């Protein structure tokens, strides 16, 4: 195969990735889009095999091991564990990119020109940081490490020193053409991945996974420069852009800057509860009264939070919704961008519970519907429905986009207690005249509600 034909076939693979991502723009075409992208990948692999002097033993062993591990992980993972799986996959992608650049380095050491050295070092550094950073994110999400920010004195200075060391090792690698400087650079990058991610709290993980996603793409693109391959450069750029957009969407939804997420050591991890002064009267309700309110509503908007997913209550929720729909009640779900542990996570959890995708509404669509909604059912969500973010300029979450539950006729909040959410602040919605509180565990409340609905 001539290099020209090979280059064009790689371009075709890249086009398949672009078409695949385009088809991910709608739930109707998304699955076929994924297949198109996978076909592009297969083609890139075949084109490479057809024209390279490969070691079939090394290749076969690596592909067999990786294929089995990848398939088992993909087919067995629970949907709630999706964030840590994606974090792990990001890490493997970064590791592969760093290793390819490393293998090229040891093969051509001694005669590397500055530009080539730069691409190799960037590929190794970004890949290695992505690898260990993703491992830490995985460990935090999996509960192997505390979700709380892990901090120590002079943390930022340590990171700055590591980064300076990284750059120095890079310059030294080029000047000396010596492998020891290169190994030092790789080692420092591995350490830096750990030290950059450990101070980041569990609730900020959606941002970090998106950012590592972006980095895994950039690492692949850098490797594309090392081996002069446009398929890697294009695919890497696409993924880099994708991860960056999702990172921005997540930080916007949290009303924070990326710098604040990375260096703020914010929050105390999952389900943090600071003690705050509570004020005002709350009105409480019972599952029986709730059943009546729901059964005679025209439209019910459910606002799920991560607490619902932790309790694995989305299946009970679906059962209640099915009963309401049977009675002619319109049920839709209002989903805040940070409702899960990664972008779009809550949508996947509800899709798993058999909720049709046209009932999953985003923030804007939900808020447009709420003033014409009879009952809002808030399940395990707190800060994302806090009107203080809209009304109280002194509130720490002021400016954060919220689902404006208080604009609906009746708000019903199912919650174990009045304790504040992640941001550690009180929620005026709970004391609103239009709000009824049902103090209960979400899963049990929904089970009770299903029984109560049978007798309405």
């Amino acid at each position, binding site marked *: 195969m001539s290099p020209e034909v090979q280059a064009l076939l*790689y371009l075709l693979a890249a086009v398949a*990735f672009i078409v*695949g*991502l*385009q088809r991910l*723009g709608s739930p109707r075409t*998304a699955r076929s889009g994924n297949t198109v992208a996978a076909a592009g990948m297969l083609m*890139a692999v075949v084109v490479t095999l057809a024209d390279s*002097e*490969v*070691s079939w033993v*090394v*290749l076969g*062993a*690596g*592909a067999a091991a990786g*294929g089995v*591990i*990848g*398939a088992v*992980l993909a*087919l067995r993972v629970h*949907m709630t564990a*999706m964030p840590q799986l994606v974090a792990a*996959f*990001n890490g493997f*992608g970064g*590791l592969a990119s760093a*290793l*390819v*650049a490393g*293998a090229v380095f040891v*093969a051509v050491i001694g005669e590397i020109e500055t530009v080539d050295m730069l691409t190799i070092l960037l590929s190794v550094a970004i890949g290695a940081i992505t690898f260990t950073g993703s491992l830490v994110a995985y460990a935090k999400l999996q509960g192997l490490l505390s979700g709380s920010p892990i901090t120590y004195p002079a943390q930022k200075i340590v990171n700055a020193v590591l980064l300076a060391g990284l750059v120095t090792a890079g310059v030294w690698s080029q000047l000396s053409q010596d492998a020891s400087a290169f190994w030092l650079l790789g080692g420092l990058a591995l350490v830096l991945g750990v030290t950059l991610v450990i101070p980041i709290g569990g609730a900020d993980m959606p941002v970090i996974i998106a950012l590592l*996603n972006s980095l*895994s793409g950039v690492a692949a693109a850098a*490797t*594309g*420069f090392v081996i002069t391959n*446009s398929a*890697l450069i*294009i*695919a890497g750029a*696409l993924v880099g*852009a994708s*991860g960056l*957009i*999702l990172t921005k*969407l997540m930080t916007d939804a949290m009303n924070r800057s990326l710098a604040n997420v990375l260096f703020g050591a914010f929050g105390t991890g999952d389900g943090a509860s600071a003690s705050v002064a509570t004020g005002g009267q709350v009105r409480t309700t019972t599952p029986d009264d709730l059943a009546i309110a729901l059964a005679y509503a025209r439209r019910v908007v459910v606002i799920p939070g991560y607490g619902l997913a932790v309790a694995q209550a989305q299946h009970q929720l679906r059962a209640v919704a099915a009963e309401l729909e049977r009675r002619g009640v319109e049920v839709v779900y209002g*989903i805040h961008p940070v409702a899960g542990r*990664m*972008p*779009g*996570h809550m949508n*996947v959890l509800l*899709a798993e519970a*058999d909720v*049709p995708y046209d*009932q999953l509404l*985003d*923030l804007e669509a939900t808020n447009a519907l709420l003033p014409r909604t009879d009952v809002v059912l808030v399940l395990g969500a707190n800060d994302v429905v806090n009107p203080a973010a809209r009304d109280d300029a002194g509130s720490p979450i002021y400016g954060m986009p919220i689902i404006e539950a208080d604009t609906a006729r009746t708000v019903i909040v199912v919650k174990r207690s009045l304790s504040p959410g992640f941001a550690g602040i009180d929620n005026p919605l709970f004391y609103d005249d239009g709000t009824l509180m049902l103090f209960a565990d979400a899963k049990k409340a929904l089970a009770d509600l299903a029984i109560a609905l049978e007798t309405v």
Partner: protein
Amino acid sequence: MLDPVVVGVVVFVLASFVGFELITKVPPTLHTPLMSGSNAISGITIVGAIIATGIENDVVAGVFAFLAVAAATINVVGGFLVTDRMLGMFRRPKREEPE
């Protein structure tokens, strides 16, 4: 003939803009499959890993190539499979014909 690195930079910048255009059109509902799917696409580095297995007479390069192939294959196979599994759960609206 232009330096391949310059050509690479041109391709990278243009592809980034294509990426921004494409991804901003993906609805929030699909953001998780988008992440796992794009993650599988970043496994394209498997091409580099395959080429690296051809580096001869160097044990370190051989070990790196083996590990790179394994890691990239996990990324590609796992990424596309889990994305397909997730997208298979997205059920069509009731008023339409079921699949």
